[in-house]
């Protein structure tokens, strides 16, 4: 008996112990598990909403870029009614010192008159009329509620009448936008003409403007309201107000992201999916923030705002320009920038550095970025105009959610006087390192600008093949390293 009972007893004792443990511990842990799952589930719902908002923000930036670019494409070809349709019912255009025009009909007529179209015909332009208005360098800030936005744009225009005149146009726009019924529209355009200059002689030939400089259009087509305040165009130096003067949202994005391990259960799979979306959206947002950051730098350089421009760099940031050498750290960078002129520029100085053609790549963890840009520059000082051109290969760093420039390198393609540009004897070689305001380090690469040519090395692999740019293997070592002398 005992021999039989004893094993039974032991088994039973063990069974009871296990069941008691299970009864006490397992339901406890399952309750905890359930509470934990509930928390994970509701956290996912919350995250989903914030990820949707993040996607909406990037979509908003693209849509506002699309509005501005469409505006340019419509003016180019005399689609003035279509341009006016981009505005709200009570949309406003403040045009230079002409005044303010309110409502789509008035806006259509304003641009029709400026562009040389006809209010009696449909879209189009007369023979011989050139009205190309390139809309460049968007810097878009979307408000926190996602219902309004502001953007700064640069307009570079080619204007003229065949066999009569050819003109360059230069302007800044500071625009407001509103989302009505899910559609972004322009609610206000502040169009700050800087100059309309004859091709012959260029902007450096312009004389200072005195008195009323309203356009011919405004004299016969009166505005609905006078222009608020007053400013004078080039050769005076005027800085249209920055909508982002105290607002850095345009260069903000989520901080660096480390991928997390998730439990191998249903919720864990959803969490991993949300993690992947979060990272992708963060990198897309960051690419737009870097585009805005480089635009912001350009808009400061335009007006000699060296201190503001230097503040966009990381503390140990590097600024390198042509063969002038490298300036390291914000104080040094400000010294380097001042090689271009006094803070705020001097009267008659033009220092337009448009930031164009961005190719931006953000690192896998959203902590760093690389950007290739182009800047073809319009300059003037002491009554002399210049053209210049070059390519940037820059590096950026995500400083806890604010993007900063960690390395800026402008490779000069050509520099020339206005009259002959790059076509003849007007070529100007690159300036060497300054002796009065020397750099912290010599140029990182030695090369010569036009008429010598070279390839600025690409920070990225070919977008289709995924391989390094295969022409590079076919170029000479000097060309590939950016030192061609051929």
């Amino acid at each position: 008996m005992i021999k039989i009972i004893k094993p039974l007893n032991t088994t039973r004792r063990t069974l009871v112990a296990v069941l008691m443990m299970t009864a006490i511990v397992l339901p406890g842990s399952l309750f905890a598990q359930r509470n934990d799952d509930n928390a994970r589930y509701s956290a996912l719902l919350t995250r989903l909403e914030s990820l949707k908002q993040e996607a909406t923000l990037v979509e908003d930036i693209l849509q506002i870029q699309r509005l501005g670019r469409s505006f340019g494409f419509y003016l180019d070809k005399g689609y003035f009614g279509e341009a006016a349709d981009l505005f709200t019912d009570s949309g406003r255009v403040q045009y230079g010192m002409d005044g303010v025009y309110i409502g789509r009909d008035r806006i259509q007529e304003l641009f029709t008159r400026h562009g040389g179209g006809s209010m009696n015909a449909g879209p189009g332009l007369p023979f011989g009329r050139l009205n190309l208005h390139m809309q460049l360098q968007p810097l878009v800030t979307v408000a926190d509620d996602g219902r309004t936005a502001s953007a700064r744009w640069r307009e570079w225009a080619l204007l003229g009448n065949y066999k009569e005149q050819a003109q360059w146009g230069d302007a800044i726009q500071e625009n407001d936008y509103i989302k009505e019924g899910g559609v972004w529209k322009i609610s206000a355009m502040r169009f700050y003409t800087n100059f309309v200059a004859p091709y012959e002689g260029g902007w450096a030939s312009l004389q200072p403007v005195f008195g009323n400089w309203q356009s011919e259009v405004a004299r016969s087509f009166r505005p609905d309201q006078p222009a608020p305040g007053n400013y004078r165009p080039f050769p005076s130096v005027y800085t249209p107000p920055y909508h982002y003067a105290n607002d850095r949202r345009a260069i903000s994005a989520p901080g660096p992201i480390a991928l997390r391990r998730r439990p191998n259960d249903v919720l864990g799979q959803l969490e991993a999916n949300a993690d992947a979306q979060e990272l992708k959206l963060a990198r897309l947002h960051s690419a737009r923030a870097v585009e805005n950051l480089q635009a912001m730098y350009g808009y400061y350089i335009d007006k000699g705002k060296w201190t503001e421009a230097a503040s966009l760099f990381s503390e140990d940031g590097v600024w390198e320009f042509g063969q002038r050498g490298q300036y390291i750290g914000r104080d040094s960078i400000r010294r380097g920038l001042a090689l271009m002129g006094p803070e705020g520029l001097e009267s008659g100085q033009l220092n337009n550095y448009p930031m164009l053609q961005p190719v931006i790549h953000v690192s896998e963890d959203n902590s760093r970025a690389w950007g290739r840009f182009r800047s073809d520059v319009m300059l003037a000082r002491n009554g002399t105009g210049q053209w210049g051109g070059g390519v940037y290969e820059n590096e950026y760093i995500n400083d806890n959610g604010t993007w900063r420039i960690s390395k800026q390198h402008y490779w000069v393609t050509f520099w020339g006087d206005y009259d002959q540009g790059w076509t003849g004897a007007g070529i100007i070689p690159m300036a060497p390192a300054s002796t009065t305001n020397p750099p912290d380090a010599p140029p990182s690469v030695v090369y010569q600008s036009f008429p010598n040519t070279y390839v600025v090395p690409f920070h990225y692999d070919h977008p289709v093949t995924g391989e390094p740019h295969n022409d590079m293997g076919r170029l000479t070592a000097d060309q590939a390293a950016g030192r061609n002398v051929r």
Partner: protein
Amino acid sequence: MNTFKLLTKKTNLIQNKLLKVSLLFLVTCNLGLVTGAALSQTPAQLEALQSELEALSIRTERLQDVEEIEILQRSYGYYVDKSLWYSLHDLWTEDGTLEIGGRGVFTGKDRVFEYMNVGLGPVGPARNLLVDHQQFQNIVTISADGQSAELRGIAMVMSSGGWGHCYYENDFVKENGVWKMKTLHGPFNMYSGYDIGWVDNIIINTWPAKFPPPPDLPPSVIYLAYPSYYVEPYHYPNPVTGAPMPPHDPAAGGEAFGREQ
């Protein structure tokens, strides 16, 4: 029965009772757990979350698509700058086409290479030759299925020949997850020399025999650039009204030739 046996029997009784209580407790708790789980996350809720995340991933992918196509188009410009024809022709699909100005249509990426290498000069930058092709103002529209895209853009040319301004209305396709150029169509708006700019000294267009190599197909449209008026059709509707672009009005006066339908 000795005390030991009695004790054992009692213990067994207690154990039996405990066993029943434990089992009951366990069953009750687990029932409760199942009911509780049903109240927090049903399979339907989890599926709804899953499909919301999938919808979001499509939006994310479209944003990624726009960025990749911008990079493709802008890289094209950087390649032209320095005559990087291998990199340039690698942007195309095998059967993609190129049509610039009035030169006609070149079919296949090998002919794209030939157009550049024969027509514009050998691979690599050359001394005293500037061919900067700045890429501006890209408007990218992705198809609903995410497999094709269209782009309107500008090339602002600063070259040894002077100034140039042309549009692009290009098509792209996604092949095995990679965006490629399917059609590059670049109608001229204005080309002029440097000396006096576009007041005169205008190139109104090119034509198939203007320089080698010859095209595979004649131009898809006959037009004259500035000082005449030609507008390349817009691939996208007005972003505010959603209406397609109306045709231009010949009464506006600048048209030289219409688009051949």
